[in-house]
C-alpha cells in the first residue's frame, strides 16, 4: 500500500516534468507516438469503416424521403442554373482575358490536394480536433491546410507515419488571419467553443473604417504565416462597430464547411512559403 503511494507521487512528478518539457518541444516523443499510431490507426480505420457503413445503411432509409422532396426542388433549380450557366460562361471568357492581363491565374485554387478520411475525433467534447488516415508516408507535413466543401476546415498540427492530427478552425484555440475578399481589408477569424454551438466563428481585429459588411466572403489573407491565401472560410454576419471604443468592429463568420457531418477532407500539399524569417 505504501509503495503505491510512492509510485503515485513519483508518477505525478514525472507527468508534471513531461508536461513542462513537451510544451517546449514535444518532437522527441515522435517515435513513441508513431508506435502507438501503428497499433491504433488500423483499429480506428476498421471500426470507423464498419460503424460508418452500418450507420449509413440506417441513415439512408431516413434520407430516402428527404431525397424525393429534394429531387423535385432540384429539378426546378436545374432550370434556373442552366440559364445562369449560360450567362456565367460568357462572363468566364471575359474573366480569363482579364486574368491573363493581370497574370493572376496561377495564384488561386491551383493547389495540389490529396483526399483523406477522418477516422477519429477527440475523446471529449471540449476540443475540435480530429485524426485523418494519411500521414508523413503520404506526404503530409505539419501546417498543411485542410479543406472540405470548398471551405477551410483546419490545419495539420501533428503528423505521424500513418496518421495526422488536424485542428479545425472551430476549435477554441484556433486563430486564422483573414480578409474580406472584395475589399482586401484584413481581420482575424477566431474559433470559440461557445459560438460554435450556435454555428458561428468570431470575426475581429477590424478597424472601424474597414470595408467589411454582412454577407462578405471572408477568405484567408495574404499575410497569414501558415494559411495559403484565398481559401474561403465563410461569410461575415452581424458586423458592427464596438460601441465601447468606437474604433474597432467585430462580427461573426458562418463557416462554409459543414463541420457536423465531415467525413472526408482534402489536404492541400502546398505549404505557405512565407519567405525567410525576419531578423532585426
Amino acid at each position, binding site marked *: 500500500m505504501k509503495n503505491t503511494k510512492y509510485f503515485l507521487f513519483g508518477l505525478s512528478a514525472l507527468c508534471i*516534468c513531461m508536461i513542462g518539457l513537451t510544451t517546449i518541444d514535444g518532437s522527441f516523443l515522435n517515435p513513441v507516438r508513431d508506435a502507438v499510431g501503428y497499433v491504433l490507426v488500423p483499429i480506428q480505420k476498421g471500426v470507423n469503416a464498419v460503424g460508418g457503413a452500418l450507420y449509413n445503411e440506417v441513415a439512408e432509409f431516413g434520407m430516402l424521403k428527404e431525397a424525393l422532396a429534394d429531387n423535385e426542388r432540384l429539378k426546378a433549380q436545374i432550370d434556373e442554373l442552366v440559364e445562369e450557366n449560360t450567362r456565367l460562361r460568357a462572363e468566364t471568357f471575359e474573366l480569363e482575358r482579364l486574368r491573363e492581363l493581370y497574370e493572376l491565374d496561377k495564384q488561386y485554387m491551383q493547389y495540389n490536394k490529396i483526399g483523406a478520411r477522418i477516422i477519429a475525433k477527440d475523446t471529449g467534447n471540449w476540443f475540435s480536433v480530429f485524426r485523418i488516415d494519411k500521414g508523413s508516408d503520404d506526404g503530409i507535413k505539419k501546417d498543411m491546410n485542410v479543406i472540405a466543401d470548398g471551405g477551410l476546415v483546419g490545419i495539420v498540427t501533428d503528423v505521424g507515419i500513418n496518421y495526422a492530427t488536424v485542428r479545425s478552425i472551430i476549435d477554441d484555440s484556433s486563430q486564422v488571419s483573414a480578409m474580406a475578399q472584395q475589399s482586401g481589408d484584413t481581420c482575424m477569424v477566431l474559433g470559440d467553443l461557445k459560438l460554435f454551438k450556435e454555428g458561428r466563428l468570431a470575426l475581429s481585429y477590424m478597424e472601424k473604417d474597414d470595408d467589411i459588411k454582412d454577407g462578405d466572403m471572408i477568405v484567408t489573407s495574404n499575410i497569414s504565416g501558415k494559411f495559403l491565401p484565398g481559401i474561403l472560410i465563410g461569410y461575415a454576419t452581424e458586423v458592427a462597430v464596438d460601441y465601447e471604443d468606437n474604433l474597432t468592429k467585430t462580427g461573426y463568420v458562418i463557416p462554409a464547411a459543414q463541420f457536423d457531418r465531415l467525413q472526408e477532407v482534402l489536404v492541400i500539399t502546398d505549404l505557405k512559403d512565407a519567405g525567410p524569417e525576419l531578423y532585426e
Partner: protein
Amino acid sequence: MNRLLKNIAVNLLLILLAFTVQTCVFPLFPFLSAYPNLLLILIFSFGFIRGSQAGMIYGLLAGLLMDLSSGGPMGFYTLFFIWMGYANGICTRYYYEDYITLPLTLSAVNELAYNLYIYLFSFLFRGRLHFIYYLVNIILPETVFTVVTTLLVYRLFLAISRRLVELQKRREKTIV
C-alpha cells in the same frame, strides 16, 4: 505466467476498445450533443472494484494512450487519471457487489472533476471566463451521459473484473 499474460492482454484490450468506441463510434452519431466518457468509467470502476493500485495502473495506461494520441502536452491526461484511479481505489472499502448507488455517485463526481481539470488548464488559462456557460453546455451534458452509461456498463465491467480475479485465484492455487 500464461494466465498473467492473459490477464494483462484482456485489460489492455478493454482500454483500447473503450478508446476506439469513444473516438470512432460515438462521433458517427451526429444527434448526440455530448459523448459519454467510456475511458473514465473504465478507470474509476476498476479502481473502485479492485483498489488503488489497480486503479492507478489503469489510469496510467489509459492516460498514456490519450496523451500519445492527442498531440497535446505529454502527461496532461495521465496526471489526472492516475490520481483518479488512486482516489477511487480508496473508496473500495465501501464496495459491495451489486450496489449501484455509490458507483453512480462516483461517476458523476469523477466526471465533474475531470471536466473542471480540463476547463481550468485549457480554457481558464486562456482567459475564457464564462464558466457557467461551459458548465451548462458541456460539462453537465457529458456528466449526464456518462452517469447513464455507467448504469449500463458498470455491471459488465464488474463481471469482467470478477472473471479476471477468478483467473488470478486459480493461478495462485496451481502455484501452491
